[in-house]
C-alpha cells in the first residue's frame, strides 16, 4: 500500500521510513513461515523426494543373475523392455479397464448426482452422507464383499440359478474386475459431479425452457456444458486410481486380467527384478502426473 500511495510525511511524524519498517516485518514473517514449513518439508524431502530419486536411479540399473541389483552399470535396458508385447498387453488392458470403469461410473453417477443436487438441502445432506459411509469403510473389505457375492456358490450365482439362468461364473473375469473398480472408485465421480451440478444457476435452465427449448435441448445446451468441470474432475479422479489398481484385480481377477499394479508388485516380491519394476512404476507415475496436470489445466480444483 505505502509503495503505491507514497504519502507525504506529516510534520512531527516518527522519523522511521515506513517502507523499511514494513519490509523488516515482512522479512520476519517470511522467516517464521519458513520455520513452520521446515519440519513437514524436511520429512517429505527425506521420505518422498529422495525415495523418488532412488527409484529413478534403480530404473537405470541392471538385474544380476541371482536377482540382486547392480547399480554401477547404468543403461536403458529396463526401459527398452517396456515395449515387450507382454508389457504392452498389460498396459493396454489397464488403460482399457480404467477407461471402461470411468465410463460406467460417469453414466451411473451423472443422473445420480443430478438427482441429489435437485433435492431440498436437508434431504441432500442425508443422501450425501449415505454415499460417504460405504466409501469411508475399508477398501479391501468392500472388494472382498464382491468376492463373496460372486463366488461360485455365492448369492449372485444362487440367484441366477433360481431364475433358471444357470450358475454364473463371474469371479476372476474382466467383468468382476471392472465391477470391483466401479464399486471402489465411483464416489470419486459422484462428489465432484454433485459439486458442479449443485452450483449451476437453475434460473438459466428455466430461461432456456421459457424460450421454448425442449427439456433434452435445455439439458445438452445449458446443464451439461456448465457441469463439464465436474465431469472432467470426476473422470480423472476415477481414471487415475483405476489405472494403478492393485488390490481389486488381485482379489477379483485372474491370470488373464493382470493389471500394471500387480505386474509391478510381482517384479519386487517374486521376480526380483527391481530395475524393471522401478522403470515400470516410474512410467506409471509419470502418466498419472500428466493426467493430473491436464486436470489442473482445465481448471479443476477439488482433489
Amino acid at each position, binding site marked *: 500500500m505505502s509503495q503505491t500511495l507514497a504519502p507525504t510525511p506529516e510534520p512531527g511524524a516518527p522519523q522511521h521510513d515506513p517502507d523499511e519498517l514494513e519490509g523488516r516485518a515482512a522479512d520476519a*514473517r*517470511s*522467516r*517464521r*513461515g*519458513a520455520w513452520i*514449513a521446515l*519440519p*513437514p*518439508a524436511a*520429512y*517429505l524431502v527425506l521420505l*518422498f*523426494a529422495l*525415495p523418488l530419486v532412488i*527409484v529413478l536411479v*534403480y530404473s537405470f540399473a541392471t538385474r544380476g543373475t541371482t536377482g540382486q541389483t547392480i547399480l554401477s552399470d547404468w543403461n536403458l535396458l529396463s526401459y527398452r523392455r517396456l515395449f515387450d508385447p507382454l508389457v504392452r498387453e498389460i498396459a493396454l488392458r489397464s488403460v482399457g479397464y480404467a477407461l471402461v470403469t470411468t465410463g460406467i461410473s460417469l453414466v*451411473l453417477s451423472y*443422473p445420480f448426482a443430478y438427482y*441429489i443436487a*435437485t433435492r*431440498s438441502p436437508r434431504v441432500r445432506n442425508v443422501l450425501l*452422507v449415505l454415499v*460417504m459411509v*460405504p466409501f*469411508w*469403510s*475399508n*477398501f*479391501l*473389505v*468392500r472388494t*472382498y*464383499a464382491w*468376492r*463373496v*457375492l460372486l*463366488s461360485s*456358490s*455365492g*448369492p449372485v*450365482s444362487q440367484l441366477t440359478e433360481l431364475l433358471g439362468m444357470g450358475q454364473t461364473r463371474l469371479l476372476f473375469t474382466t467383468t468382476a474386475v471392472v465391477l470391483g473398480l466401479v*464399486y471402489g472408485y465411483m464416489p470419486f465421480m459422484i462428489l465432484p459431479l454433485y459439486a458442479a451440478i449443485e452450483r449451476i444457476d*437453475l*434460473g438459466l435452465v428455466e430461461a432456456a*425452457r*421459457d424460450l421454448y427449448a425442449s427439456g433434452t435441448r435445455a439439458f445438452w445446451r445449458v446443464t451439461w456444458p456448465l457441469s463439464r468441470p465436474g465431469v472432467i474432475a470426476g473422470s480423472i479422479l476415477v481414471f*487415475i486410481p483405476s*489405472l*494403478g489398481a492393485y488390490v481389486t484385480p*488381485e*482379489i477379483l481377477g485372474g491370470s488373464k486380467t493382470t493389471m*500394471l499394479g500387480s505386474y509391478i*508388485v510381482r517384479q*519386487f516380491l517374486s521376480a526380483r527384478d527391481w530395475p524393471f*519394476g*522401478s522403470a515400470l512404476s516410474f512410467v*506409471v*507415475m509419470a502418466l498419472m502426473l500428466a493426467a493430473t496436470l491436464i486436470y489442473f489445466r482445465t481448471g479443476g480444483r477439488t*482433489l
Partner: protein
Amino acid sequence: MTGPGSTVEPRGAARRLLAANAWLVYAFFYAPILVLIALSFNENRLVGVWRGFTFDWYGQMLSNGAVLRAIRNSLIVAAMSTVLATVLGTAAALSLERFRFRGRQAFDALLYLPVIVPDVTMAVMLLLFFVRAADAMFVVSGAQVRLGLTTITLSHVAFNISFVAIVVRARLAGMDPTLEEAAADLYASRWQAFRRVTLPQMAPGVLGGALLALTLSLDDVVITSFVSGPGSTTLPVYVFGLVRRGVTPLINAVSTAMLVASMVLVLASVLLQRRRELS
C-alpha cells in the same frame, strides 16, 4: 424453485428414471456390505449357503493369536502415524495459507505429489529407500535396521501429511483472517492470538484431517505390505493374505468387524461436525 411445478425438475418418465437410478446406485453401494455382514453370522462353513445363526466365527476371531497381533499392530501404527501426520500436516497447511516465504511454491508442489502418486509406486519408493537407508546405517554405525512397525509408521506419515494438509488448508482458507488481525490489534501476543483465535477456529479441520489420516492408515494394504517385516503384519495385510487364498467364514467375521469400526468412525465425525455447527 425445484418444486414439482417448476420447469427445471424433470417430469414424467425422466423423473421416475432419475429416482430409480438413485435407488439402484444405493442398492449397488449397500447390498454387498449387507450380504457380507449377514454371512458373517452364517453357521455353514460353505459361505454362500445359509444354515443358521451363530457367533462362532467371532469367537474364533477373538481367540486367533495372529488376528489379535495384527489388530494390535494396526492400532499402534495408526495411532502413532496419525499424531505425527496431523502435527506435520497442520504445520504445512499453516505455513502455506498464512505466510509467504522462499520456496513456498516448490513446497506446495511437493505436498501435492504424494496424493497423486499411485500406491504401488509409493510402495516401491519407500521399500527402496528403507533398503538403502539400512545399508547406509550399517556402514556408518553398524546398526541393523529392519523392516517393521517403525518403517510402516514412517511410511504412513509420508502419505498422510498431504491429506491432513489439504483438509486443514480448506478450513483455513474459509476462515476470516480479520479475527486474527483484530487479536493482534488488541495487543495479543502471536502465541496468544494463535492459541485463542486461530487454533479453536481451525480445530474442526485438524480433527477432520486426523480422522482421514486414521482411516487411510487403517486402510492401507499395498504400501504396508512392502515395508513390513516378519511379525509386523497389520490387519489389512493379514486379511489380504487370507483373501487371496479364498473365502472363509473367519474372514467374513474379521471384515465385518473392520466395517463396523470404520462406520463408527465416520458416524462419530459426522455427529461431531453437526454438534459444532449447532453450537
